[in-house]
C-alpha cells in the first residue's frame, strides 16, 4: 500500500527565516511526486511535479527536490503570503497509476 508521511505537522517561521518541509514516501513504482499548496477553505493549488530521483524544480521562493525515499520543499526567505498548508502526494506506476495518495500536510505560518 502506498504511504506518504509529511513532517513537521506545523511550522512557525519568522519572515525571512528559511526552512524545509519533508515528505517521506513508499510507493509501488513512482510515476510522479506532486506538491500542492492549500489555503483555508480552498482546493489544493498545484506547485510542482517531480518524476525521478535527483530532479529539482523551483518557483519563486520554493524549491522541491526528490530522492528515492523522500522529497523536500525548501522555502527560502519566506513572506507572510507563503502561509498555507503544503501537501505532498505520490502517483504510483502500473495499473493503479492515476490516483494520488496524499500525506497529511504541513501547516506553515510565516509571521512578519
Amino acid at each position, binding site marked *: 500500500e502506498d504511504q*506518504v508521511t*509529511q513532517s513537521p505537522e506545523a511550522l512557525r517561521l519568522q519572515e525571512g527565516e528559511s526552512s524545509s518541509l519533508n515528505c517521506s514516501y513508499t510507493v509501488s513504482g513512482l*510515476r*510522479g511526486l*506532486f506538491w*500542492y499548496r492549500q489555503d483555508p*477553505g*480552498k*482546493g*489544493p*493549488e*498545484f506547485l510542482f*511535479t517531480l518524476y525521478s530521483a535527483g530532479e529539482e524544480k523551483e518557483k519563486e521562493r520554493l524549491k522541491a527536490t526528490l530522492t528515492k525515499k523522500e522529497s523536500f520543499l525548501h522555502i527560502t526567505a519566506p513572506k507572510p503570503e507563503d502561509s498555507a498548508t503544503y*501537501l505532498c*502526494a505520490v*502517483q504510483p506506476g502500473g495499473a*493503479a497509476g*492515476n*490516483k*494520488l*495518495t*496524499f*500525506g*497529511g*500536510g504541513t501547516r506553515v505560518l510565516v509571521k512578519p
Partner: protein
Amino acid sequence: GAGVSQTPSNKVTEKGKYVELRCDPISGHTALYWYRQSLGQGPEFLIYFQGTGAADDSGLPNDRFFAVRPEGSVSTLKIQRTERGDSAVYLCASSLGRTQYFGPGTRLTVL
C-alpha cells in the same frame, strides 16, 4: 480560462437524506477525480473517470456512494442515506496528463 468548478460550495443535510454534489471539470480534460478531505487531513481518493467510465472506484467507502459522468464532462457524486461520518470536504480534480487540478470543494455537513 475557467478552472474546475463545484456546486454547491456548502451543503447541510440531515442524517439519512440523499445528496448530490456536482463537478464541472476544466474544458477538454478527459480525466476526472473525486477525493474526500477531513479536517486536518490530506485528501483521500474516492473514484476516477476516464471519459464516461469509472476506471477506478476502489476508494468509494461503501455502496451508499456512487458517481456518474454520463457525457464525459460534468460529474455528479451521489451519497445515499447520509451519515454523520460523511461530513467532509469533497474535492473534484481534472487532468489531461499526469497533473491534477482541483476545484474549491463542497463542504458537506450531516447533522
